[in-house]
């Protein structure tokens, strides 16, 4: 994507910051812009969030609007649904996506279904932020990548940023949306830096992918951490193999058109996402490409993800199961 590097002035001004800072900036801007927006979750206030994402927001907006909750995911997720139906715009933090099971009822049967069941007579402007991903030795209950569950489930939108700019732009779109959106933040890339537009109306439409690097020989559709690793790989391979890297970034709705355009050009596709492989996000991307660009494919589609195992604790084992740029490279080598 195009990032204006110089700071300068005016609406195109950007600043280099981390994904964590970009998320906090989005929250700050939206809390500032709309009094109906409030943030709630465990230790999001004075403590600043376990991954320090909410940081100092409570100092600016107070404890009412940056609201610490008891450890009651079902209770406050449900409260977010009830609050959204009655005129506020909650932004809920679920500390680890692995915990989402305890409040899934409110997500799947209330947040996702009420609008439809009520014949469109309610809006559901809830944003859920949650963390995903292995790589920190946190073991199986704090390392999962579960976004496929909710990208699959009708009635919720799901996004997964890979860059600071998309972290800001997607979260702002989520908060402004009248529909429920879950933002899946990979915790390994919170420190990743990039240029972020400072315009406080900068948003990225949900449902759009982004071609992060153009190439001719193979398309890598990646998400979250795998976007950065694929870009590094593309740089390394430059001269031998021309790799196009597409950041999927919106899991549902999905920008089929951008994926299909890319594969029509390159004829080859690798899908890199940290989900378990079976029935994963990969499968959905692959199917859409098959449905729309079958005759452009010159080789079988390749998937890079986690085998159907949980994320183990020991560094030796964790390293083994997590996908990396080297796995993307191996996949490219199988088909190019």
């Amino acid at each position, binding site marked *: 994507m195009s990032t204006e590097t110089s700071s300068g002035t005016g609406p195109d001004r950007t600043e280099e910051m981390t994904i964590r800072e970009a998320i906090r900036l989005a929250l700050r801007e939206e809390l500032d812009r709309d009094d*109906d927006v*409030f943030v709630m979750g465990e230790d999001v206030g004075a403590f600043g969030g376990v991954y320090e994402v909410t940081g100092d927001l409570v100092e600016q907006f107070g404890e*009412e*609007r940056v609201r610490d*909750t*008891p450890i*009651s995911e*079902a*209770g*406050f*997720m*449900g*409260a*977010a*649904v*009830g*609050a*959204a*139906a*009655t*005129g*506020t715009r*909650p932004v809920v933090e679920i500390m680890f996506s692995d915990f989402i099971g305890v409040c899934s*009822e*409110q997500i799947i*049967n*209330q947040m996702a279904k*009420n*609008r*439809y*069941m*009520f*014949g*469109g*007579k*309610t*809006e559901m402007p809830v944003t859920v932020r949650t963390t995903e991903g292995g790589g920190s030795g946190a073991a199986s209950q704090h390392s999962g990548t579960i976004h496929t569950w909710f990208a699959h489930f*009708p*009635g919720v*939108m799901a996004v997964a940023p890979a860059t600071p700019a998309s972290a800001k732009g997607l979260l702002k779109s989520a908060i402004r*949306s*009248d*529909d429920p959106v879950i933002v899946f933040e990979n915790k390994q890339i919170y420190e990743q830096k990039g240029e972020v537009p400072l315009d406080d109306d900068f948003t990225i439409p*949900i*449902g759009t992918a982004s071609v992060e690097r153009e190439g001719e020989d193979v398309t890598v559709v990646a998400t979250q951490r795998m976007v950065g690793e694929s870009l590094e790989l593309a740089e390394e391979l430059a001269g031998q193999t021309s790799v196009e890297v597409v950041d999927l970034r919106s899991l*549902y*709705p*999905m920008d*089929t058109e951008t994926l299909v355009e890319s594969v029509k050009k390159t004829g080859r596709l690798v899908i890199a996402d940290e989900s378990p492989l079976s029935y994963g996000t990969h499968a959905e991307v692959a199917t859409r490409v098959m449905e729309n660009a079958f005759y452009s494919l010159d080789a079988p589609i390749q998937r890079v993800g986690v085998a159907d195992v949980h994320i183990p604790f020991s560094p030796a084992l964790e390293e083994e199961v997590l996908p990396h740029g080297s796995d993307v490279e191996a996949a490219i080598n199988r088909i190019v």
Partner: protein
Amino acid sequence: MVVLDIETEDGQREALRRMLTIRAFDTKAADLFSDGELPGFVHLYVGEEAVGVGACSALESDDYITSTHRGHGHCIAKGLDPDLMMAELFGKANGYCNGKGGSMHIADVDAGMLGANGIVGAGPPLATGAALTSHLKGEDTVALAFFGDGAVAQGQVHEAINLAATWDLPAVFLVENNQYGEATPVEKQHNVQNLSETAEAYNIPGFTVDGMDITAVYEAVKEARKRAADGEGPTFIEAETYRYHGHFEGDQQPYRTEEDVAIWKDRDAIETFKRRLVDAGTITEDEFDEMKAEIDQQIEDAVGKAKDAAYPDPSEAYEDMFNAAVPEISDFSSGMRADGGEDR
């Protein structure tokens, strides 16, 4: 519309009218169901009318309620239109949810009715959320959750009450203890004698009231509403009541005898309230009979209108998922539907 305030004589007659409307509506629903005219399941409120109407008469019209799978009574008590409810039961386009919700999901958010709910225990967190909106926006609305004795065993109900209590939110938690969760009697589901004892755990007031006495329910909720609106937090009220019908229509009810039911029918809430109003001279026997006949006719008419109403167009199945348009759904609708869609 007549205001439902049972401290006035007009309000008392209106409360009686709503209780009768609930009974007529749900008795009719039972007949329609057994005649095979209604799809799905229906859970009826017959016998419990004093709880819904007593509670809603203590609320202001812009207060919120959350409901349960047994929600028709809450809807009527909150002032929803039986015509549009009946249309919804038939799955018709003009129903409250355009036919998408049915008996278990009737909602009218603008009227403060946040939805009947097919998930036992899911309503209280929503009420806590509506109370949170009120708190954050500095409004003076209150949210009341109706839920069953069975729901009291649900974790999310506990979480919702604890949140509202900890944050002093303007909420009221009203348990309709109709003595059973499906087929299991309340004493086999809980270790406390009265469900209201659980209030102690949240350090909020808890009361058990006679749910067959509309005045008792009204007074308890009135007091709870006042506390809530004054910023003193939620109250937990248990109303002891009874459902005359099975858990759902078709339930053979092996778990109770006709004598068990008769004991409660002897204390029928409508009969009791009517007696009280007749004795006070608020209504005469003749006026009562007239009112009842009028309501029976109104429900008959509602059925007639619902039967005559149109079903939603099949394409409506693809509407209302999101506020924003989603290509996944519109593309399917236009290209891959069973009827071939627009393209074929």
